[in-house]
């Protein structure tokens, strides 16, 4: 059971990786745009 929960959590993390990437890029764009 614990193994399944661990697997579920790690799957969640892997599937959210692209969105972490998009969030980082967008945040960088906004920070540069407002501070240059």
């Amino acid at each position, binding site marked *: 059971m614990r193994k399944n929960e661990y697997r579920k959590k790690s799957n969640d993390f892997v599937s959210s990786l692209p*969105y*972490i990437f*998009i*969030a980082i890029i*967008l*945040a*960088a764009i906004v*920070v*540069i745009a407002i*501070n240059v």
Partner: protein
Amino acid sequence: MERIIEFFNNFKAIYAVEFVLLAFAIFFALNILRKNNAKPILWVFVLYTIVISVMAFLSEGKIPSYMVLMFVGIFVVAVVSMFATEIKRAVWESTLKTPEAKHTDSRSDRDDAKVCINEIIKAVQSMSKNNVGAIIILANSNMPSAILDSGISVNSEISSELIESIFFPKTPLHDGAMIINDTRIQAAGCFLPLSQEINLPKELGTRHRAGIGITETINVTSIIVSEETGVISVAHGGKLKRYADTEMLKNTLRNFYWKEK
């Protein structure tokens, strides 16, 4: 280009703080959109942020930075308010101990739980057979007092006879929900928030909507018996499973009382 190079040459700590906070806020909004299958809105959000940033960049300071942050903020707030129910559920799930985690230890606890499981199943099946409508909420001290106060405090041991008596038609408490807290019936005749989900089948009445509605915001499980058809349904996390048989009921109740695999 020169402006970007200059930005990196004069990099300040406050930029890093801005970046981290923004990244978290944007990821939070994206994650809500992703989990709610709202990918078109997600891409609109991405495009919107890029367009606002490019406009601010090209305007060379004519669009003030707070305006840009405000525009991005408006979208984050819009997303949060659009999915308020889902966020509430996520917060409940992450902050509260799940009911399943509670009973794992002593033998007597398990014996008590077994008796409760059998009594609940017996009552639910009997009510289903006789087309008596019922709604039972399995909660573990996580029921808001506003809901408990809307009904009548019972605080009694669980027995199939008592459950059936409470839901017997034309009795004062039969119309509301029964709240089971641990191995006791805490309250009966309670009013629950209704689900606003528009995709629910038309044949489901207010009782089913209430049963689903409460599980959308609070980490509880509801067992619903239809008055018209006698069909038993189980709702958890805003999702309804219909046509529950003995096995499904047993699994639901075992998950409530302890995790057994």
